[in-house]
């Protein structure tokens, strides 16, 4: 990770916004902070732990022509922000809240979701959650959670959106208002798009299935079944059209699996 990028971000944010590096993808660098960009009164508002925020930064790529670079940064920062705004309007679909966008510099501010799992099991994404239950893999809570995850993907696809990079790290679990049940959120829509193509949906499902198989192989059969059950429940609730579309998506999903989508990889 290049120090230059961190320095740029720190300079842009000024010392009043201390940041912590979370990850560096090909597309963006992700930081967390406890400072809200424009609601300073929020920080101390509700008690114990300070609320966290996510800053996603698309750094300039020196390898490409500055004109191309500027256009792409703006376009992508904007399209991801737009997608989040649109997805929020879909009832029952859970995505992180967009707080701010600076398309000129390539920054997006988002709400931080999830928490640390008990017993040092790490951050509460689906991947770590399933690891946490490795000794009790068919626990009712696992089943319910995977079913709910499936429903989220079902909602996304039913409304003709695709995620584009649906891995178990891009599904985050947050406790519901009662602090008991896990509520799944889909995150990182950097490769997401509006799409009514069955192929895109089939690939989404396949990528997730591969992710489950590669990290939780012994229980992947049941896990994937529960996901598909949840996914199907959304379509089935839409009557005949839903059932027909579901059949198309699942058929393509099977095709993609047979073909072995090229970008299947471990991890």
């Amino acid at each position, binding site marked *: *990770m*290049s120090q230059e990028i961190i320095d740029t971000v720190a300079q842009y944010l000024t010392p009043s916004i201390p940041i912590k590096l979370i990850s*560096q*993808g*090909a*597309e963006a660098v992700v930081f967390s902070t406890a400072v809200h960009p424009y609601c300073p009164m929020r920080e101390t508002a509700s008690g114990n732990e300070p609320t966290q925020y996510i800053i996603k930064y698309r750094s300039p*790529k*020196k*390898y*490409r*022509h500055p*004109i*191309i670079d500027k*256009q*792409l940064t703006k376009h992508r920062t904007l399209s991801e922000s737009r997608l989040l705004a649109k997805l929020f309007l879909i009832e029952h679909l859970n995505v992180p809240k967009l707080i701010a966008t600076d398309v000129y510099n390539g920054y997006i501010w988002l709400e931080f979701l999830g928490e640390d799992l008990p017993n040092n099991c790490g951050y509460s994404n689906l991947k770590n959650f399933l690891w946490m239950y490795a000794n009790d893999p068919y626990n009712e809570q696992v089943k319910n959670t995977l079913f709910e995850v499936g429903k989220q993907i079902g909602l996304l696809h039913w409304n003709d959106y695709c995620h*584009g*990079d649906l891995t178990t790290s891009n599904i985050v679990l947050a406790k519901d208002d009662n602090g008991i049940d896990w509520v799944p959120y889909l995150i990182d829509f950097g*490769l997401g798009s509006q799409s009514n193509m069955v192929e895109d949906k089939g690939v989404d499902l396949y990528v997730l299935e591969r992710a489950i198989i590669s990290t939780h192989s012994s229980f992947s059969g049941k896990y994937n079944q529960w996901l598909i059950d949840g996914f199907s429940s959304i379509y089935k609730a839409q009557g005949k059209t839903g059932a027909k579309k579901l059949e198309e998506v699942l058929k393509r999903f099977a095709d993609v699996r047979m073909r*072995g989508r*090229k*970008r*299947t*990889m*471990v*991890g």
Partner: protein
Amino acid sequence: MVNLNTIEPRNGRNYYIALGLEGSANKLGVGVIKHTRLPNTASGDNSHNCQVEILSNIRDTYVTPPGEGFLPRDTARHHRNWVVRIIKQALEKAKINDPTADIDVICFTRGPGMGAPLHSVAIAARTCSLMWEVPLVGVNHCVGHIEMGREITKAENHVVLYVSGGNTQVIAYSENRYRIFGETLDVAIGNCSDRFARTLKIPNAPSPGYNIEQLAKNCQHKESLIELPYTVKGMDLSMSGILAHIDSLAKDLFKGNKKNKILFDKETGEQKVTIEDLCHSLQENLFAMLVEITERAMAHVNASQVLIVGGVGSNTRLQEMMGQMCKDRADGRVHATDERFCIDNGVMIAQAGLLQYRMGDYVKDLSDTVVTQKFRTDEVYVSWRE
């Protein structure tokens, strides 16, 4: 555990000799290589470290006049006319006097590529095999590029960008396959530049892409850029729209179509854009897309290096951009080979074929030597790697 030393070299020698025949497109290549049987190849992941010796590497390119592409039938005729002479030259240069005694294996390109040219070279390979009683190995052209690149550069923990006239793929190795992460959804990058070169009517020698690269280098307005579609789709890319766009610009330029405001000044009608500008913009746009999908794949598999193979890999601007990207990602670096190895050649086919042969995998029945135009990189079981 990979053991590359299971098959005994012929006649009790301690080295292997392989003859490679390549003819999937307009280059006819014949190469002879030698692998000494080393202790380090008896175990472990050392297939990129065979200390290959290149005994000969001869190539003859079928060059068409400016404005024309190479057609399968004519290319096949070129290969048929030349293959015997080129094989003889290669053997002579490699000082192989008795092929029956000296050659361990004959490797030929099974695909992918143009049917007719592939077929003519396969016939030559079969004939030599029967004549000299030497076993045959059919090689995937893309795997040939990858194995040659690995052996020459010794790249490790890398993603492969394979860019040529017929292919554009981002590949990473995993569990005995070269898996394709991203690829073109329509035309290949080399094809794109070849076709643009035809529109520009610039020479096809030494290669259309090389000539475009030179024109781009001479561009006087590098700070500006003509806007072209940027069509990365996840890890894939599409180039046909870009080609159509730049093609129509070039045609307008030749016609002197003053209505085109991108090319001619609105008021004075003065020409604002040159051929060099078009070449520069095309390269900048296409290469940015290539580097981007390569970086995506690197992030996915946690690789720090890139190996560029294929004819377009010799483009210095592409190498420069890729190098910059690798540098900006934690201490990464780019590996590329020069034109001897990145442009289609027989040596690379020999290298991949010999690795396969040393794992005991060769043609047992001539019916398995049928060439195939479509042959995906990930169809090959890579037995010689961990």
